[in-house]
């Protein structure tokens, strides 16, 4: 199993450009998440999904959109990129039977720079 796969690993955007960060998992997990990590700030939840067709906002959703058309894929869309969106983005997944522990499985991250 590949686990959680994120693409691209690195990307430089100009202000105002748009892009999609891809995330796929092959563990048949129902729950998927997007977090961003800024230096010294820990991980902040952007959006999450509890299953195909269902998404909801996290702590910092502004400037982002998501969709969940399949169990496996959870892309994150950045519209009109701004320097404040420079960050490392992590996609994660969990199976709902993990609710007892809350364990998440993370991808390797996508480093985005907006200039």
């Amino acid at each position, binding site marked *: 199993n590949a686990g*959680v796969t994120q693409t691209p690993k690195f990307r430089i955007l100009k202000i105002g450009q748009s892009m999609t960060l891809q995330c796929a998992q092959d563990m048949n997990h129902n*729950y998927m*998440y997007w*977090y961003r990590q800024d230096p*010294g*700030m*820990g*991980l*902040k*939840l952007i959006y*999450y999904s*509890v299953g195909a067709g269902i998404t909801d906002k*996290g702590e910092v959703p502004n400037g982002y959109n998501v969709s969940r058309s399949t169990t496996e894929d959870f892309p994150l869309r950045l519209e009109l990129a701004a320097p404040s969106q420079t960050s490392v983005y*992590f996609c*994660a997944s*969990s199976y*709902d039977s*993990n*609710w*007892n*522990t*809350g*364990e*998440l*499985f*993370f*991808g*390797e*991250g996508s480093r985005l720079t907006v200039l």
Partner: protein
Amino acid sequence: DQQVKQNSPSLSVQEGRISILNCDYTNSMFDYFLWYKKYPAEGPTFLISISSIKDKNEDGRFTVFLNKSAKHLSLHIVPSQPGDSAVYFCAARKRTSGSRLTFGEGTQLTVNP
């Protein structure tokens, strides 16, 4: 409003000694606490967790202690090894929030040979 806080950005210890990483939280609705470990250019990986109904959980060299009255938890690593050098994140979950976790800022642990 930082509900989970790790006040030490970094910690340096000698190989073979104990590493103690600390975490404080403010929300009494948290019912599960987790520690994640993160190496550079990799995603966080789950290390150990503890339920709010317990005060200690041990897994090999790693032990997590929970003091609910003080809203404080700590991760002990004994003995510390150079391969333990990484960023450690404390995270907490509210049962009503499913698997959504609230993370602390992280502590960079360096274990010197």
